[in-house]
């Protein structure tokens, strides 16, 4: 191949690249539209909800879906649609906060272990193995039960059980790159080990991390909802998908299926969105996907 190849078109802008990823893969486009919907609901939920999510109306308890109440009402006569919409903010906040925490802590620990190796690596890996040896949900239950029944503690518990996945992923990604030519070249350019790790090696681990982040957001929502379902974490009457499913479960037997179904569907939709989002996010942060 000749050294002076024909000039390729100018480098794509970041926005242009995101546009390309979305156009190229309709599934990603759908995932991002659903994600946008979730974000809108999280920010403007209270404004969009047709009723006050906490206002009970005993005369209209347990009504099936109708034009007044699209998703029906629960045993206290609260509008389920409003409660589902308003709960979006709380559920997303818990999962995003938990994933952000485990992303940051896991990246630092994993990068250090992967780059320096030796006893740091051995010690850290064994600690993470210990966490992973517990049934993770039971561990989260234990943490919340021991530390107290608050939203922050749900976030911490979710972050701790997700931490090993990030740490292991980053450790592997850093480990295969620590002797790559570009890392050595960065050292020759006068970068200290810490700078090489933080500015040259770690950013290259981002594409696979994005897949993990997006899958984890889904798991984190399920985990928070699961804790609430069994009575740990968020307390009634706060609107939260997990509690709503738990409350509704009692009425399924007596035929009032809508009380549990709609918050359950919201959960499914959110988890589904995050699972679909992963590949698209990875393609967006990977410069090699640009041409």
């Amino acid at each position: 191949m000749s050294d002076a190849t024909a000039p390729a078109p100018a480098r794509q802008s970041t926005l242009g690249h995101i546009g390309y990823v979305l156009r190229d893969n309709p599934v990603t486009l759908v995932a991002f539209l659903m994600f946008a919907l979730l974000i809108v609901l999280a920010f403007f939920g209270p404004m969009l909800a047709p009723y006050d999510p906490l206002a009970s109306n005993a005369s209209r308890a347990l009504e099936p879906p109708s034009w007044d109440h699209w998703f029906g009402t629960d045993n206290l006569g609260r509008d389920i649609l409003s409660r589902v919409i308003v709960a979006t903010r709380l559920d997303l906040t818990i999962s995003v906060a938990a994933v952000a925490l485990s992303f940051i802590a896991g990246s630092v620990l994993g990068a250090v272990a992967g780059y320096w190796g030796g006893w740091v690596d051995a010690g850290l890996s064994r600690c993470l193995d210990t966490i992973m040896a517990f049934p993770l949900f039971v561990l989260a239950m234990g943490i919340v039960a021991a530390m107290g029944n608050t939203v922050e503690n749900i976030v911490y518990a979710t972050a701790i059980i997700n931490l090993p996945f990030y740490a292991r992923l980053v450790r592997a990604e850093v480990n295969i790159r620590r002797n790559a030519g570009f890392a050595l070249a960065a050292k020759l350019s006068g970068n200290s080990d810490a700078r090489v790790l933080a500015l040259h090696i770690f950013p290259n681990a981002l594409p696979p991390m994005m897949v993990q982040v997006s899958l984890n957001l889904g798991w984190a929502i399920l985990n928070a909802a699961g804790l609430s379902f069994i009575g740990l974490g968020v307390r009634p009457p706060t609107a939260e998908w997990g509690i709503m499913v738990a409350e509704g479960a009692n009425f399924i037997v007596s035929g009032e299926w809508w009380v549990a179904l709609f918050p359950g569907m919201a959960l499914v939709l959110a988890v589904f969105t995050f699972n679909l989002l992963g590949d698209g996010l990875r393609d967006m942060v990977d410069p090699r996907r640009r041409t």
Partner: protein
Amino acid sequence: MLLSVKDLKVVFRTRRGPVEAVRGIDLHVEAGETLGIVGESGSGKSVTSYALLRILDAGGSIRAGDIVYGGIDLRHAPERQMADIRGREISMIFQNPRSALNPIRKVGHQIEDVLRRHNRATRGTARAKAIEAMEAVKIRDAAKRYDAYPFELSGGMCQRIVIALALACDPRLLIADEPTTGLDITTQKAVMDLVSQLIRERGMSAIVITHDLGLAAQYCDRIAVMKDGEVVETGRSVDVFTAPRHAYTRRLVDATPRDGASIRSLLPAEVRTPELTHTPSPEPLLRVQDLVKTFEGKSGPVHAVKGVSFTVHDGETVGLVGESGCGKSTTSSMVVRLLDPTSGHIMFAGEDLAKTPAKAFARDPRRASIQMVFQDATDSLNPRHSAERSIEEPLRRLAKLSSRARIDRVRELADLVGLPRHLLDRFPHQLSGGQKARVGIARAIAVNPRFLILDEPTAALDVSIQAVVLNLLADLRAKLGMSYLFVSHDLHVVRLLCDRVVVMRDGEVVEAGTAEEVMEHPSHPYTAELIAAAPRPPVRHQAA
């Protein structure tokens, strides 16, 4: 005629629309003949061979043409018939022997699999036949090696296993795709001698695909030269090499390092400029004394470098030559201060660099004066950084420059190494191999080092680009007065650039002297062996 290919066209579907990888080529192979397909990367030579066996990657398809093998139309044969033909009638040796073998299966079993797939052996006879096949490719202790896993064998031994696999069912046509790339030069000779001997003994035909014109000329009856998906010239090997008709073939022949060539004569005649002279001074710049590196291995200490000493004078280029595992890379890592020696001294401009640990050397004021050009240009550039950012990196850390001055310096460097300025904002994957090599060189010389280590800077490049890069390095040396330590396994290339040569083997220096002296009158048998193993292309008749 055993195989005939007429007007073959292969198209790949890509993000930018269809790309024609092979654009209408005609080839034929007679019974008992070895055809060499020579071309540089991207010329479509491998794609051609994959098309013959219909094993193109997803997205690739044969658009037009006929492939007839012994009366069978390979293009339209049903998949069942193709599966029988692959391995039994036509078989293939792949480029990288390690990735061609299943890493978690014993090599003997892998040979058995092929034999039994094509009904050449039963459960009872498979083992004996597999050992027989291994003995045919001159594997000593074949019965013992039968139980080895690929990772337990050397690269050359793995390639022998791959050849045994390919020949197990006595195919009539063997396709070898870059069979010796990545092997040491002495192993390359052993493998190619073995292949050509087996081909002759069994009366097979063969297609050898290679980027090395010298290798093809030595082992093939006829050569087809490919460029950009087309065959530009075919002819008898000697004719193609000694009297090339096509301009591209002539350029390839010129660019192939050979006896008696000067560095400028590798370039096409029309771009040759007078060679710039460099004058080494008698002042020593770098003196390496008794350098030792011992790694703590799981099964005891590994002595990678056992007391190496050599000197590089100011303005001089010294070649450090040896095969893989001889300790040349470990030595260069220690000299460039990426690795701490176990013992010994690295005297640079009168000071012992070995006293500063490698960890602390990044902040040492002498960091800027020793830089390195890495072996694999692709691997040595951060995939997330543009070319500009990569060249700028040492300037950010080691030079006190304003951001304005840095950008000017990057442009100046790009001009110096011949990298077009509009390529500066490209990412590495958007650059060609030669362009990436230029970025790597620009980065290394950015902070005006006095001493540059070149770690096989041309090993991954095509010969024509190798010629350009070697000349660039020679020019830079003359313009900037740098000293080089040129690490390489290829004595022909080393001779072109170096004033003196140090030959290493098993962590020790076995011979040192001026390039001329070492090449013409090697005093150590190992050096003589290295020189003899390099393919010797026929000498071209100088046109009047």
